[in-house]
């Protein structure tokens, strides 16, 4: 139910373009419900996940 995937943006350019990836790392949550650019502490990522999941 929870999946985390690293995605190489050049090989998966269609996917990268869909989310307009420019700077990396760029974490897309639930097909675009939220985005976290850069490496952030666990607590920050958790906040973003909570917000993204609120829509469901």
């Amino acid at each position, binding site marked *: *139910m*929870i*999946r*985390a*995937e*690293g*995605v*190489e*943006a*050049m*090989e*998966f350019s269609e*996917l*990268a373009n869909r*989310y307009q*990836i420019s700077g*990396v*790392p*760029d*974490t*897309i*949550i*639930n*097909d675009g419900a939220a985005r976290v650019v850069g490496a952030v502490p*666990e*607590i920050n990522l*958790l906040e973003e*996940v*909570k917000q993204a*999941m609120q829509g*469901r």
Partner: protein
Amino acid sequence: MEKLLNDDILGQIRDVFQKMQHPVELVLFVSQDNCDYCAETHQLLGELAPLSDLLTLKVYDIQTDADLAAKFGVSDAPAILIMAREGEQLTDLGVRYLGIPSGHEFSTLIQDILLVSGRDSGLAPETRAYLKSLTSPLLLQVFVTPT
């Protein structure tokens, strides 16, 4: 075919893999269509797998193993699923990598293998409690570029 990993690196990884606790299976999906890095990814993982008795590699094809690809929700290649193995039983913990894990991402792969091997996320109690409470899917896609 020339080796991708030199003896120095092989030795270092072999040492790091001493820390592995439980078996891990790398499930690699390749494709004959439109996959520039499939062969190289296969070779890379093939050089990695022998470095620990706790690490195995299975390779499937998205087209010829379509049922399995559908079961794991894999539609593009190369896709590396880092699964927990207990005997013949595989558990998909949702950890995967799409693309060839080269440069900096190679150490990400090694870390993922160790993480799955430890069977523990290492996350804070609050995070674990929250994730356990989820009733709908969560997908995190971390985009990276080759270094």
